[in-house]
């Protein structure tokens, strides 16, 4: 995978794209992030992103595809995950491979902060990359499930918009929930 910084002049980048698509090897797709990073990936990997898979089907993808909604750092993480998951091992047939992949997944997400995971969720949703979207969403779910409402509000910077009456009723409900 090559990552090249494009020049910021609009016109020359178009020409660059055109040149890139002519000179690119067969079965390779070039993705360009919103901030100008380019990623050359195998078609098989690109097909993990349903919107791109559809473009390839409809033959309306040039070989270079701009991904306007996603920045380079996030796109690179997504591609890294996609490459590992091009072939999903069947749990029944190859338990060993599944275990290895699960372990890789765990390490992959361990290094990411919540902010990055959020961006990955949005990007995976945009690209329609179901596997990563599910995985990232599950990671967030696992993260919040042992947190109190106050902690969740703090982490996600959410405002408590209940009325005082609602707040009181919820407090009573929670008295049973948390202390019994």
């Amino acid at each position, binding site marked *: 995978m090559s990552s090249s910084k494009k020049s*910021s*002049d*609009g016109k020359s980048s178009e020409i660059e794209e055109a040149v890139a698509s002519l000179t690119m090897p067969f079965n390779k797709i070039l993705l360009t992030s*919103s*901030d100008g990073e380019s990623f050359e990936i195998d078609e098989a990997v690109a097909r993990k992103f349903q919107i791109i898979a559809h473009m390839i089907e409809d033959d309306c993808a040039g070989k270079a595809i701009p991904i306007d909604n996603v*920045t*380079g*750092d996030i796109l690179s993480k997504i591609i890294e995950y996609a490459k590992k998951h091009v072939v999903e091992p069947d749990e029944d047939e190859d338990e060993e491979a599944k275990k290895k992949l699960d372990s890789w997944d765990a390490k992959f997400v361990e290094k990411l902060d919540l*902010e990055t995971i*959020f*961006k990955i*969720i*949005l990007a995976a*949703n945009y690209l329609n990359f179901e596997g990563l*979207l599910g995985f990232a*969403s*599950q990671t*967030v*779910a*696992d993260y*919040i*499930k*042992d*947190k*109190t*409402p106050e902690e*969740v*509000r703090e*982490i*996600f*910077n*959410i*405002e*408590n*918009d*209940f*009325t005082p*009456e*609602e707040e*009181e*009723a*919820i407090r*009573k*409900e*929670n*008295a*049973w*929930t*948390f*202390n*019994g």
Partner: protein
Amino acid sequence: MSLKSILRDLKEVRDGLGGISKRSWSKSSHIAPDQTTPPLENIPQSPWASLPPELLHDIIRRVEESETAWPARAAVVSCASVCKSWRGITMEIVRIPEQCGKLTFPISLKQPGPRDSPIQCFIKRNRATATYILYYGLMPSETENDKLLLAARRIRRATCTDFIISLSAKNFSRSSSTYVGKLRSGFLGTKFTIYDNQTSSSTAQGQPNRRLHPKQAAPKLPANSSTVGNVTYELNVLRTRGPRRMHCTMDSIPLSSVIAEPLVVPGIEEEVSSSPSPKGETSTTDREVPDITPGLRDQPLVLKNKSPRWHEQLQCWCLNFKGRVTVASVKNFQLVADIDASLDAPPEEHERVILQFGKIGKDIFTMDYRYPLSAFQAFAICISSFDTKPACEG
């Protein structure tokens, strides 16, 4: 901070500014801005607040699906307590116990259990304080962090005995929001009446515009009629040391809830109420309902205890508790619907055990209940079994 993270931070700054200023800055101004990286905490608008609702829905759904048993299920209630949008989404996701077999909010205790298999709980008795506590789970766990569902305390009065039922083991005041209902025994101790409290929890108040999806868990406690039902114990007909007979008349549950098996078709709208809706009215495709007068169908459901069999070799009365009861006790029972033979209900309805209660150890009893009973009703009935009844023991 590692070099990698510094570079990452700088990248974020550049990205952030690039995003905001696409309109005003041209791409040729590649100069790094002359300011320090703004710490994430100072960003006023959290990106999480802009998470599309369907993605938030998926995250909360995953929490609900993975945290099915207590105490982990508290996570679902947490989600419902974060803010209005989270609460709305959580309420859409959580189903009533009848449909999912899980207890989530306090209101779940007054909603009918599932039809297919019972919700399994146990009761711990504390003789010293005359307190009975209902816990969720098969039996007391090793770690002793079982979820308390309901608690009851016996209060002997001049002419009767009351069992106050509460959401908290520490508060049995009838004026408290924890008060759920009570069981009152008559003078002879052979007839008990179950009362539901009149107050409705205010969780749903202040949200008049919230549409109640028929299958969601409505948090508001319904304003039921005060009397839920009654339990009577009778001497064994043979007046020997035989098992006593029990009858429970459930005023709030119509007989029609157990007659006429509905064909479960997805998408059927059911009434949101704590008393079970009559089966015949919820399905448009149920099998032919026997031609009985409406008056008969609306009669209160009566439960009776299943007659045990006499085991000649063991010389005792036996019931098949399916392993959930292991100690013989006169308090043990299984309740089935008392349906008149003329009503032509399916045979399995006569045999289906709706409530099972029995001893498994010193001061520990199991309680398994299912549709159309709720946890509260089941608990109240079981408590009646604790009160000593010299009049009906041979």
